[in-house]
């Protein structure tokens, strides 16, 4: 009945008078790799907070596969298949890389189950697959806290893969990475598109150009959508140049 995987309509959210999200509408089709850009304070991370249940909108609707997300909390939304990578890498620093992925695998989330369950061969295999994808096989037994910043980012993406999320919300995956790591992250995300639906928030325009070759780009400004389209269209749009690229060009 709804052709969109995720649809947000008329979202509003203010924090003590500041309108972080202003009448925002956003539609996402299954299998898309969507990039969201926008200057600082445009509401990118706030928007992810609304989708994942970290904060609730003042008004508006949020639907995922015909499920109303508004009455749900973080872990209920997660269980629908929405995974999130945070802006600053959020992994379990005192657990090994392997354990981080183990905790992220799909399956029961109940207390009793967690006490009596044992790791199964197919789970181990899946973890090894993910380790291969995120290139951390060698470091499976390292504590996640001992990883380099870029590797933590990869681990967190790996945790979303282990979860086998339908929708991956990826907040600034390239932050703090070298150019080469950034490029590899881009390739990883491109290889996942189609199998998963992905929303990437990013600042780095080279990276954005890389991953949005075939996808659409949404520009947020002051809490609402400024424009949407291919990366070339967006980059040549006058309004965008004015509020975002123009300002960036000045500072560079």
């Amino acid at each position: 009945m709804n052709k969109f995987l995720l649809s947000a309509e008329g979202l509003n959210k203010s924090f003590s008078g500041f309108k972080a999200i202003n009448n925002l509408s956003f539609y996402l089709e299954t299998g898309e790799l969507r990039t969201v850009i926008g200057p600082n304070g445009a509401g990118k991370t706030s928007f992810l907070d609304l989708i994942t249940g970290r904060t609730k909108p003042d008004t508006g609707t949020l639907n995922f596969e015909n499920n109303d997300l508004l009455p749900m909390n973080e872990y209920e939304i997660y269980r629908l298949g929405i995974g999130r990578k945070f802006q600053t890498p959020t992994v379990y620093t005192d657990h090994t890389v392997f354990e981080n992925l183990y905790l992220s695998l799909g399956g029961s989330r109940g207390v009793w189950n967690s006490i009596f369950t044992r790791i199964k061969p197919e789970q181990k295999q899946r973890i090894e697959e993910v380790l291969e994808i995120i290139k951390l096989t060698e470091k499976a037994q390292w504590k996640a806290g001992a990883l380099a910043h870029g590797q933590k980012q990869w681990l967190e993406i790996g945790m979303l893969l282990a979860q086998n999320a339908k929708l991956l919300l990826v907040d600034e995956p390239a932050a703090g990475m070298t150019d080469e790591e950034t490029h590899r992250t881009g390739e990883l995300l491109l290889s996942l598109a189609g199998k998963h639906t992905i929303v990437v928030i990013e600042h780095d325009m080279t990276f954005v150009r890389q991953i949005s070759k075939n996808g659409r780009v949404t520009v947020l400004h002051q809490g609402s959508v400024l424009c949407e389209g291919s990366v070339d269209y967006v980059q040549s749009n006058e309004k965008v140049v004015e509020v975002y690229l123009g300002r960036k060009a000045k500072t560079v």
Partner: protein
Amino acid sequence: MTQPLHKRESLWFAAVAFLLVILLPLADAFGIIDHFTLNTWGKYLCYAILAISVDLLWGYTGLLSLGQALFFSLGGYMFGMYLLLMIGKMGQYKSDLPDFMVFLGHTQLPSFWKPFYYFPFAALMVVLLPGLLSSVFGYLAFRSRIKGVYFSILTQALTYGAALMFFRNDMTMGGNNGFTDFRFVLGYDVRSPGTKRGLFIATAVLLLGVYALCRWLTKTKFGLIQRAVRDSENRVLFSGYAAANYKLFVFVLSGVIAALGGALYVPQVGIINPSEMTTEKSLEAVVWVAVGGRGTLVGPVIGAISVNALKSYATRAFPDLWPLLMGTMFILIVLFMPKGIVGLPTQLHHYWNHWRHHRKPSPEEEEATAELTTKPTSAE
């Protein structure tokens, strides 16, 4: 690499079990150590059980509860009610009623006291009442996402409120004098060396059982999630786990463990009163855990025994200075020995390396070497 480590640990466990359950009681029976010493150690072992319950919350789950003395005392009170009724007519007033009730002018036993004539009922209540209280309190606190210092303050308030209630005479729980002068437990004379030996063995078995249970639990996936809640609760929620349920489970389990320790504590020290459930007592248990090494299971046991041994000595040698001494010790440990006594060998090893190489290894290196020398994975 896991196997030999496991084996060595089991050997240690067996050795300690042999010492506590067989050797010490035998030494006591043949007069090699005196009864007083064994009794004192029985008390320390009860404290060790309390300390494990504190660490399960604080060290493993990141919940600093200042209410564990309450659950310890509640367990003690429940068992104390049974012990008090077993005195029978042998009290000061030669009445069927406990002394304090006669003194307060009661003519018959309040109805909630009656079932406590039966040992099984009392034993059940030792587990049930603290379990129920921790369930209700934990449910409300965790559902409202009360965290960190606010959680500590709330548990402190709970303990304080309960102590005030128990101080009241009209609660018919002995007021500020509490229960004392116990005579019999299961028909045996509480004061006889044989019974005391039995109680010591029971305490040792309970401690070993609690240790083994917690050891097993912290090695399961549950244990992984428990520590994940401690390190990054947000990630846990965004990995689909209802963190509140996990915290509630740990809180109730810890409450019950503390209560069991308290139930065995009371017949061994011969008294229970509301001063046992004050916040200071909870804080003391936190100090034991910090001294021994939190986030480990051996740490709380070592901490509880060593701090209390020191306390026994210090309160005789210089009684006025003990609180100061304990406070200073806590501060120094937190500042300079964050991993407590258990972490000391590793810490010294690091200093030794540092001294040898005249340089400090980078944090990554430290983590990496620590990782290589300790356990590989617990998920296996």
